[in-house]
């Protein structure tokens, strides 16, 4: 099914306005899927500000949108500087290799282990945007 053009332009706007944007199931505080949680755990170690969109309230319409804009159907999806970087597998792999820090333009954290942090950040000064709402 083609994506809803209104939702699609709204999403494109959000991707353009947020240099680091995560589409996930649940919220960073309460991920509702293990894959989304893994990406949140990685981002929380990166000392980077990011926006998060909970896809669950509009899963199918958002799937149609991301299929059209990025040829990708599954969530989580991490967009960096307007382009899809990847889902949980790619984000973790790039985190471990240091490529993620490079893509985000931050220093690689000293302890490189995605399992090391809990759902809340181990690093007190991580700034995190509140989840964005989709109407």
């Amino acid at each position: 099914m083609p994506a809803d053009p209104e939702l699609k332009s709204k999403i494109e706007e959000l991707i353009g306005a947020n240099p680091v944007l995560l589409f996930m199931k649940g919220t960073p505080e309460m991920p509702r899927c293990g894959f989304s949680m893994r990406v949140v755990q990685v981002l929380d170690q990166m000392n980077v500000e990011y926006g998060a969109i909970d896809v669950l309230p509009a899963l199918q319409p958002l799937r149609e949108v991301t299929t059209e804009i990025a040829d990708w159907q599954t969530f989580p999806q991490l967009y960096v500087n307007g382009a899809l970087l990847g889902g949980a597998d790619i984000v973790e792999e790039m985190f471990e290799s240091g490529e993620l820090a490079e893509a985000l333009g931050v220093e690689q954290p000293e302890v490189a282990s995605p399992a090391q942090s809990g759902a809340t950040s181990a690093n007190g000064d991580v700034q995190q945007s509140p989840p964005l709402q989709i109407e």
Partner: protein
Amino acid sequence: MVDLAELKTMIEVALPGAEVEISDEDGGGQHLRADVCAAQFEGLSRIDQHRLVKAAVKERFDDGQIHALSVKTRVPE
């Protein structure tokens, strides 16, 4: 139940010369994993490498035989 050998063949046909390994991580076909080593990945971003693998097995996603496929890609040394 999804046919793992068929998935392997689909990827090998899409990426001739690739080394492909498919594993069923929980034995129930719900958590499949594909390890793919292909020269075609050279110079591509990871997301594009994954797109090639997902595209190769798209039919099995579309017909609902697979729901989740974890992908690991590698360029041959």
